[in-house]
């Protein structure tokens, strides 16, 4: 791999009240790749994302982003550094419209403060709002959710909510996108659409993407590399072809599924 290292996880361990969620996990995420993290439920995949976004603080080890140490940086700062994410169980702002959800994610890019907010017309708030609105509309049209622009997200069907959540992550204009099971609960058709969006984001913006997903067909198709976790330990790392046939991975995770994949 000649691409530069973007995010680097070194010897990270994490435990909750005695149970080890992560044990001495290390891997690198390279600039512009799609890296999938797979593994059984409870293997620590989401915990790993939570460490990367500062929601959990690892007991040991370090996480660096473009060479900067972010292990102890608070979550709201990490978002500002350029790491965006979606959530396993959709975590939208249910009372806001699609538009406002995505606008709310532009938060870190706004410059004006509390007093300008109150004054609106003077102090530049209005101008900035319009500028960001334009950017948000681009995201909305890319994800083909124009028709629900002003609909309250709480009432949208699951598949669309997942898409709005992706839009919200895009609005951060991050350099790394962490997707936590973005296709869960979707049928094939919806998965295909979502996969297309993810691939397009990857290609057009050269976005580095970290993906947690259980649909092995999908992971094998779109990931460049795969990291496998089991009981908080990294048991394998490699290309989809290597992982598919890794006996350890088959034992702990894939089971008979590897027959279908080949």
């Amino acid at each position, binding site marked *: 791999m000649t691409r530069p290292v973007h995010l680097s996880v070194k010897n990270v361990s994490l435990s909750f009240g005695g149970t080890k969620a992560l044990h001495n996990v290390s891997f690198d995420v390279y600039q512009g790749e799609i890296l999938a993290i797979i593994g059984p*439920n409870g293997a620590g995949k989401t915990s790993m994302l939570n460490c990367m976004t500062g929601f959990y603080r690892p007991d040991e080890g370090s996480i660096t982003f473009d060479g900067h140490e972010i292990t102890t940086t608070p979550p709201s700062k990490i978002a500002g550094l350029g790491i965006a994410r979606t959530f396993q169980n959709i975590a939208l702002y249910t009372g806001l419209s699609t538009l406002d959800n995505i606008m709310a994610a532009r938060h870190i890019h706004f410059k004006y403060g509390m007093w300008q907010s109150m004054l609106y017309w003077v102090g530049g708030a209005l101008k900035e709002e319009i500028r960001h609105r334009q950017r948000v509309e681009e995201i909305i049209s890319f994800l083909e959710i124009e028709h629900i622009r002003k609909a309250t997200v709480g009432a949208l*069907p699951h598949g669309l909510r997942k898409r709005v959540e992706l839009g919200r992550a895009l609005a951060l204009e991050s350099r790394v996108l962490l997707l936590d099971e973005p296709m869960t609960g979707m049928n094939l058709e919806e998965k295909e659409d979502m996969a297309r969006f993810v691939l397009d984001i990857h290609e057009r913006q050269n976005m580095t993407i970290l993906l947690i997903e259980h649909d092995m067909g999908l992971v094998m198709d779109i990931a460049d590399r795969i990291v496998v976790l089991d009981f908080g330990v990294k048991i394998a790392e490699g290309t989809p072809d290597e992982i598919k046939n890794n006996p350890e991975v088959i034992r702990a995770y894939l089971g008979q599924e590897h027959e279908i994949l080949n």
Partner: protein
Amino acid sequence: MLTINNIEVIYNDVILVLRGVSIKVGEGQIVALLGANGAGKTTTLKAISGLLHAEEGKVTRGSIDFENEQIDKLTPDQIVARGIVQVLEGRRLFRHLSVEENLLTGALTRKDRNAIINRDLEQIYHYFPILKTLRKRTSGYLSGGEQQMLVIGRGLMSRPRLMMLDEPSIGLAPMLVQEIFEIIRKINQETGLPILLVEQNARIALDVAHYAYVMETGRVVLDGTPAQLAQNEDIKEFYLGMTQVGERKSYRDVKHYKRRKRWLG
């Protein structure tokens, strides 16, 4: 044993969610309900279990009969008492209760003596040995797979005569999906318990089911045995993800977003 006759469900007096759905579950059968999100699968289950009432939904036409009794006017607790239990989507459990307490909540409606309930508990631990080792653990801290086993176990604790499972595979690793479906099959074979299954993963659902229905926008568009459905071109393409020649197609090859085909109806 369960017959749904042409039911119509309306939410909040205005939103029509089900428009004429008829489904049958026979003795000892596993019946799968497939379909896109928003097609009305979960609503169908909730219509059966009576949980619709709490969400301002109503069965406005048609009837639901279970063992020759019309049940669509009953409250959820009366329906559970008749032997129908619904295992909700998303591994919903009483997070702050322990594993064993969660299982026991399943048996709260029964009037059996403790000895019998304890024997059933052992039976659950027989199907899901891992739960026995975790019995004192606060259930909120279990992993996804363990939680799914727990909620199925809790459903069984009510000694149901029909169990409804809503998306048991959602968010689970492939191995676990296989494991859980193996157990579902085993429970069905050993006890003859009929199961109505809502599932997004069409391949595995068709693998265990004896009969399947496909739903789209609030109605049943197709039904048949898994073997019959597997022959259907649309099922192959939209539910099983196969190319024309019968191979798994790659997600990288799907280029066009809008190629939706709908069944007539």
